[in-house]
């Protein structure tokens, strides 16, 4: 059997930030974790004895000696169980497999100014950004948006930061005048944003309206794959049929059936899990495929997307 890629680790410390946010420090059990650039995520795997959970989280910090990784996990209401399990059972000592570390949301090193916009748990990639940007003397500003009751928690998270560069808002972006601020940015500014879908859509539309070129607007959609209508996949190479239940993803169903399906970020952001569709219609939920690729109808990202038809035939 091929050697399993990744790093065995366990939970070292747990800290409750708010009723829905918890910080977990993971400690490497053998070798140290690889160097981590700001904006990276880690694909974590953990189990409760019955079910194996695989979720990707932004890395907030890697300790200097490489022994520890810190992530913050939000209790997701439509969770398929991973975040709920970590919140309820994620205690020190729990084994966690760190499957892969990658960066789909890096800092643009050539940018003259960095404008960071986050909402809710979307702040996590920026916690590592802030440390780096401050250490190199970069020009940056963070505007963070959250609910009023969460304000103290986020202010505490940002307490060590340069206070003239970080702002926490409890009003909506449209109410504080973010559109005007965006419009007033210098031409050399790069904007980065991360948060829930409604926030992402607003920032995408507003930056576009202000004339930010696509190369100047960078985003990371963290998103919890949601369930949906059950369907069945037919694996063309073997003729096998795999049922995808309402509360599991296509990728999870394939893994459950011991199918060797590719994957990396597990959140519709990297494109590594793309598989050829031979028959049936995909319900695309990713942020990777172009309109043309969607229209072609012959590719699907298994980690988040589902089927509009009762069956989907894949080249697997």
């Amino acid at each position, binding site marked *: 059997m091929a050697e399993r890629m990744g790093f065995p680790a366990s939970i070292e410390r747990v800290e409750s930030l708010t009723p829905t946010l918890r910080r977990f420090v993971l400690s490497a059990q053998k070798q140290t974790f690889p160097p981590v650039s700001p904006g990276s995520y880690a694909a974590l795997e953990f189990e409760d004895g019955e079910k194996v959970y695989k979720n990707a989280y932004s890395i907030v910090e890697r300790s200097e000696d490489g022994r520890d990784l810190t992530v913050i996990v939000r209790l997701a209401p439509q969770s398929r169980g991973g975040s709920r399990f970590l919140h309820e059972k994620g205690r020190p000592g729990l084994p966690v497999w760190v499957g892969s570390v990658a960066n789909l949301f890096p800092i643009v090193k050539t940018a003259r100014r960095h404008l960071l916009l986050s909402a809710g748990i979307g702040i996590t990639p920026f916690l590592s950004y802030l440390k780096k940007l401050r250490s190199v003397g970069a020009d940056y500003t963070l505007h963070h948006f959250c609910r009023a009751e969460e304000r103290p928690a986020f202010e505490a998270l940002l307490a060590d930061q340069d206070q003239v560069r970080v702002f926490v808002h409890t009003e909506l972006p449209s109410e504080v005048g973010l559109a005007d601020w965006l*419009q007033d940015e*210098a031409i*050399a500014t790069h904007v980065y944003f991360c948060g829930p879908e409604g926030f992402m859509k607003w920032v995408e539309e507003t930056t576009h309206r202000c*004339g*930010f*070129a*696509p190369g*100047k607007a960078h985003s990371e959609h963290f998103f919890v794959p949601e369930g949906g209508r059950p369907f069945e996949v037919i694996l063309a190479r073997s003729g096998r049929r795999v049922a995808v239940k309402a509360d599991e993803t296509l990728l999870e169903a394939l893994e459950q059936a011991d199918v060797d399906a590719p994957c990396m970020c597990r959140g519709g952001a990297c494109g590594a899990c793309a598989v050829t569709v031979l028959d049936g219609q995909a319900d695309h939920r990713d942020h990777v495929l172009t309109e043309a690729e969607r229209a072609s109808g012959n590719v699907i990202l298994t980690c988040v997307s589902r089927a509009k038809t009762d069956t989907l035939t894949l080249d697997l």
Partner: protein
Amino acid sequence: MGTSELPYRPLTFDPDGRRHLFVRENATQAFPEGEQPAVFEVWTIEHSSLIKAESDTCDVRMRSAADLLERLAYRLSREKVGLRLYAAGRPAFLAQVAKVADGAGLCGGEIFLDEPAGFERRVFCVHCDTLHDGVSGDTLVCQGCATELSVRDHYSRALGAYMGAGEPAVVIEAMEAATHG
């Protein structure tokens, strides 16, 4: 054969831009195609000392390329997000506009370069750093070190020039000549 040329293509107004600036080396160069925005500025080089600066108009005449490039650098350093820059002219002019824009932090979707007028290129001697403007052939004699240079397809965006390198035998001859005088 691969080259690292600047991305040239016929100019079209970008509807996603909020302000538009078209710089051209010559008044004969046509405006970008597509729906013309209500407001856009045109900077044209007149190659004349009789030109006076009038900054409050949308149709600005410049004395020379050097004048235009200097004012462009100043303008871009104060520019806000949303500007689209279009440039038309000879390859050396486009190269210099791209260099100024890169220096000001513009990216691919913010600067558009027309198909260049003419084939003259700017060539950088890799042996002595001398820059040559208006090179039309594939070979030249370097004005700095007299090496016979062949122009490579390697374009440097930072220098705004193609690399000119001497063939090894030629370099050896030149070095020997320099040593033994």
